[in-house]
């Protein structure tokens, strides 16, 4: 069920108990068939669990869309050193607000997914890295973990299976870059959250130098359902390449923004006009960012033909990312919004790589200059050139994330930039 609104076209699996305070307690969760999947998984061989996840075709929900089962299978089988599972709950991609709801409404669903993952990969310790600002969600989760320890669901003998799994809730301290997997590992180890060079990949050398797998909250929350019902069951929704359901976070100029759980492949047009009740005051659609601020902007025409699955959004010219749909209407000042996004990345750049540290700052400066009416047409070429040099040249993809909105907005809304540069005309200006 969507939050705060629901819609009949939704397929509520992960979000079934959003808004139901009882589901947050251990008793309430068990009464809703909670921890049955964990029990089932503990009776299975770890390899069987990995195979079930592979069969479901579940793809990572944090943005990259890497197949989860495959990722799990990279973990070494040898038990000569500790293995870790990290849950990435550092939700900070602008436009994304699904993990907070998953943590505060159904914390035990996440814990169950973590425990199944730990069993499948032979991990002894799960760290749930929560965003520092999530005081409320972190408290709910910490309480749920405490209760699970007391009930013997977590601990030295997980549900009487003899398996020892510990779970620790960790709170970050405010840094977007800690959502990057190796940045998160550095942060967990008490370092600056600077991403690491890969290889070595986390499955070989991860947190504390040990084999590590890191999954998003939504990915792990889907695991209990897949284990309980089988991989094939999950494939009844979505497409061949993008099976299952996904939480769509819709924000911006729609009547009913919020989280909606829909099958992958759902038409973006229906999401905006049907599920979200249409545009505020029936204004015209101008642009949509389909996957959080790091992906290319879609024009209204591109958006209206777009299917919301991994391959569908690529076809439309963008990426699904974490399915954070930011909707902009005709009153939107694109130049200002792109400047705001660029200044965000300039603020959050960790500063390790020169193209990113310098590039994000200069892109922001040039965009501000254009906004102030002191820009030239050459500035647009400079922006494209600079962002091209920022793509694929750095340790992580934060730098590429600036390039996406800048380049796509200049390509698709060039007239708007030119109107500002040539005539000082601004959209939405009073």
């Amino acid at each position, binding site marked *: 069920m969507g939050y705060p609104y629901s819609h009949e076209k939704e397929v509520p699996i992960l979000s079934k108990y959003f808004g139901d305070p009882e589901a947050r307690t251990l008793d309430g969760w068990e009464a809703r068939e909670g921890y049955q999947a964990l029990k089932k998984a503990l009776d299975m061989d770890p390899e069987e669990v990995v195979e079930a996840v592979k069969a479901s075709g579940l793809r990572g929900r944090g943005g990259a869309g890497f197949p989860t089962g495959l990722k799990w299978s990279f973990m070494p089988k040898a038990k000569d050193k500790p293995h870790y599972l990290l849950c990435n709950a550092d939700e900070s991609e602008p436009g994304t607000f699904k*993990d*907070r709801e998953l943590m505060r409404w159904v914390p035990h669903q996440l814990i169950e997914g973590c425990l199944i993952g730990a069993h499948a990969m032979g991990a002894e310790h799960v760290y749930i890295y929560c965003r520092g*600002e999530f*005081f409320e969600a972190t408290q709910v989760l910490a309480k749920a973990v405490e209760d699970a320890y007391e009930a013997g669901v977590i601990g030295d003998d997980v549900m009487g299976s003899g398996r020892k799994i510990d779970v620790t809730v960790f709170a970050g301290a405010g*840094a977007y870059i800690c959502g990057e997997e190796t940045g998160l590992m550095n942060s967990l180890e008490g370092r*600056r959250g600077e991403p690491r060079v890969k290889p070595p990949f986390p499955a070989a050398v991860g947190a504390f130098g040990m084999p590590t797998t890191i999954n998003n909250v939504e990915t792990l929350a889907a695991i209990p359902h897949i284990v309980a019902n089988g991989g094939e069951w999950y494939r009844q929704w979505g497409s061949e390449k993008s099976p299952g359901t996904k939480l769509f976070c819709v924000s911006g100029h729609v009547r009913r923004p919020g989280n909606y759980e829909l099958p992958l492949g759902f038409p973006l047009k229906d999401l905006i006009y049907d599920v979200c009740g249409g545009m505020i005051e029936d204004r015209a659609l101008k642009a949509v960012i389909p996957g959080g601020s790091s992906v290319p902007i879609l024009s209204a025409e591109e958006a209206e033909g777009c299917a919301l699955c991994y391959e569908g959004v690529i076809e439309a010219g963008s990426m699904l990312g974490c399915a954070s749909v930011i909707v902009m209407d005709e009153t939107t000042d694109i130049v200002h919004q792109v400047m705001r996004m660029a200044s965000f990345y300039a603020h959050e750049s960790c500063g390790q790589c020169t193209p990113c540290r310098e590039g994000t700052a200069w892109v922001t400066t040039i965009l501000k200059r254009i906004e102030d009416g002191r820009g030239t047409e050459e500035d647009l070429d400079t922006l494209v050139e600079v962002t091209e040099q920022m793509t694929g040249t750095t340790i992580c993809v934060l730098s590429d994330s600036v390039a996406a909105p800048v380049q796509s907005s200049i390509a698709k809304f060039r007239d708007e930039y030119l109107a500002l540069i040539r005539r000082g005309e601004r959209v939405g200006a009073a």
Partner: protein
Amino acid sequence: MTEIPFKNPGWAGNVGEYDLTEEQVRGIDFVGVRPLEGGHPAGSSTYPYMMEDKDPEAPLFEGPYEERLEKILTRYPTKRAALLPVLNLAQEVRGHVSPQTMDRVGEILELSSAYVRGVATFYTMYNKRPVGRHLVQVCTNISCNLCGAEDVLKAFLAHTNTEMGATSLDGAFTVMEAECLAGCGFPTCVQINSRYYENLTVEEVPRLVAHLRAQDAGAARSTGPEDEG
């Protein structure tokens, strides 16, 4: 604005229910108040509260906080890994992380002062300077921005009579711009100390500020004599 279909125990923005207590906002019936000693070690690394009363001289790692520190240290294979949780704890106690606080944290975790500063300055949630009783962080990132967040920020600055990032003369408010708080569906999203206020509009800002001021006056009345005595 469309009516919200059900009541959210954590929801304070839509109808200006500012008088909900912290406990109600956190869902007291389920969460309870997190104990200062950290409860179960699994949850001891969280940073439960940003307090209104901020005493920069408060003793660190004493009483229940010492217990919490011990619990935090049991959860990681290295001492260094406890750095963020311990800095969080220090900020919870003192309201900000001063160079002296960082040195103390470094001593406990056997890390150099320079290293601790390097890490602490990387993260935005560590207040490097003292902040007001109410630390107001207004998200002005894209989703909130589309829905008028910059005007909400201006309204906060005007009604608290402060400049961006500065603390009001009475020590009540520090207003800052924040990056995305992950409340994009509920714009404008504002975090004040540990609490999110969602769906805030420009019109609601003066009411909220007045409410917080009244709360402070009430708190001062009830504890005032002892404080001054």
